[in-house]
């Protein structure tokens, strides 16, 4: 069988895992940043500790803790373990990205929204949220590209993604070079257009709303 075809068969798993973890992280990052910015110092401190723990432990160790450790008491599929593991790490990074964006936002935006009598929900969804998404795009894109590469650790718990496919080809063909170079090429073929698209999107939005 063609080595490249086999490796390309790993692309859906890599993309699927990356997108699922990113979506989980983007969603969980919201409550996490709210807790992190809480006026209650105990709550804020706890959220900060949680974020630092998630960011301080290597992804592979997290996956092992969840899949082999937690997996002994709760039945977890490798997909669930990988998505939850990378999703939690993403939540920590996304919370920090959101926090940076919120800190950069002019306090006057909240003042104006409050003075207009907008409800809390409206302020978040119509005023602060859209601006936050925009300022978070560059950092989120860098993180997403890193996550796509980090998703390769999921091969250790049996997810049939790009690296795992390359390893399989390598073992079957006793070629340690070509399959991994092909895998590298496939990763780059995904990350470079993503980086380019993110930059382009950022430029377009920036030119519209630049202050």
């Amino acid at each position, binding site marked *: 069988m063609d080595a490249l075809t086999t490796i390309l068969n790993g692309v859906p798993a890599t993309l699927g895992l990356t997108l699922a973890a990113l979506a989980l992280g983007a969603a969980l990052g919201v409550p996490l940043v709210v807790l992190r910015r809480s006026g209650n110092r105990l709550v804020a401190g706890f959220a900060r500790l949680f974020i630092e723990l998630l960011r301080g432990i290597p992804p592979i160790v997290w996956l092992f803790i969840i899949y082999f450790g937690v997996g002994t008491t709760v039945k977890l599929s490798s997909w669930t373990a990988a998505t939850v593991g990378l999703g939690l790490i993403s939540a920590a990074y996304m919370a920090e990205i959101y926090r940076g964006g919120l800190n950069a936002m*002019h306090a*006057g*935006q909240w*003042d*104006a*929204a*409050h*003075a*207009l*009598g*907008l*409800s*809390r929900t*409206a302020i978040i969804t*119509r*005023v602060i949220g*859209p*601006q936050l998404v*925009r300022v978070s795009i560059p950092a989120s894109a860098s993180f997403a590209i890193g996550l796509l590469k980090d998703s390769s650790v999921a091969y250790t718990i049996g997810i049939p993604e790009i690296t795992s496919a390359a390893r399989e080809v390598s073992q079957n063909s006793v070629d340690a070079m070509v399959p991994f170079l092909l895998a590298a090429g496939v990763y780059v073929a995904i990350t470079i257009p993503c980086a380019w698209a993110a930059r382009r999107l950022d430029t377009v939005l920036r030119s*519209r*709303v*630049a*202050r």
Partner: protein
Amino acid sequence: MSTPRPVAIRVTDLKKSYGALTVLDDVSLEVREGEVTAIIGPSGAGKSTLLRSINLLEEPDSGEIEVLGSVVRAADRIGPKSLNELRRKVGMVFQSFNLFPHLTVLRNVTLAQELVLGRDKKQADDRARELLKRVGLEDKADQYPSRCSGGQQQRIAIARALALDPRAMLFDEPTSALDPELANEVLLVMRKLADEGMTMVVVTHEMRFAREVSETVVVMADGRIIEQGKPSQVFTEPTHERTRKFLSVVLDR
């Protein structure tokens, strides 16, 4: 003399401090309907804090605020309902404009009309265009605020506040971020608004505006109102030494 107009805004014994720093020290103020009140004084006097307390962007430690019949006591827990009731009656304009940069000029003026007053898109658009025309910017409706000069942005901010049909307007140093030429176009809009009988409270360093447009000048220093009266009196024969000093500095420029 005509009969005195009813009180629109009444602030009673307002106190506010940040830690050891007292920014409002027992401040009381009355503004009558249709009256233009200018608040002047050295920086750090508490002018902006007083203004921001009127619509509760700043929560006072104690005291009472009454705006056109809505009463809020600092001692009570202020619920979102009474907060919105009060804020609906007053519009506010800020030194830094604070337009929403991700929305077009038109959307800036229609957003709160739809979300707060429940107007439909057509009603809100019509009202917004009418107000943009009034401030001389109907051709900017589809632009983003970043494409407008500071003076234009501030006029849009005034239109945005007026769109909710407020019964009083608060201006927090509306021209301080603008160079004189742009400041002038904003002041012209404010004069027009005053002529139409809008109740206005203006924190300002524009002494000419305070002198020519306002009916009452309030002088603040160190968190207190040290003097207030008609501009002709405050500017020509101030009773307080501190006022005299402040005026001699700002009028000599």
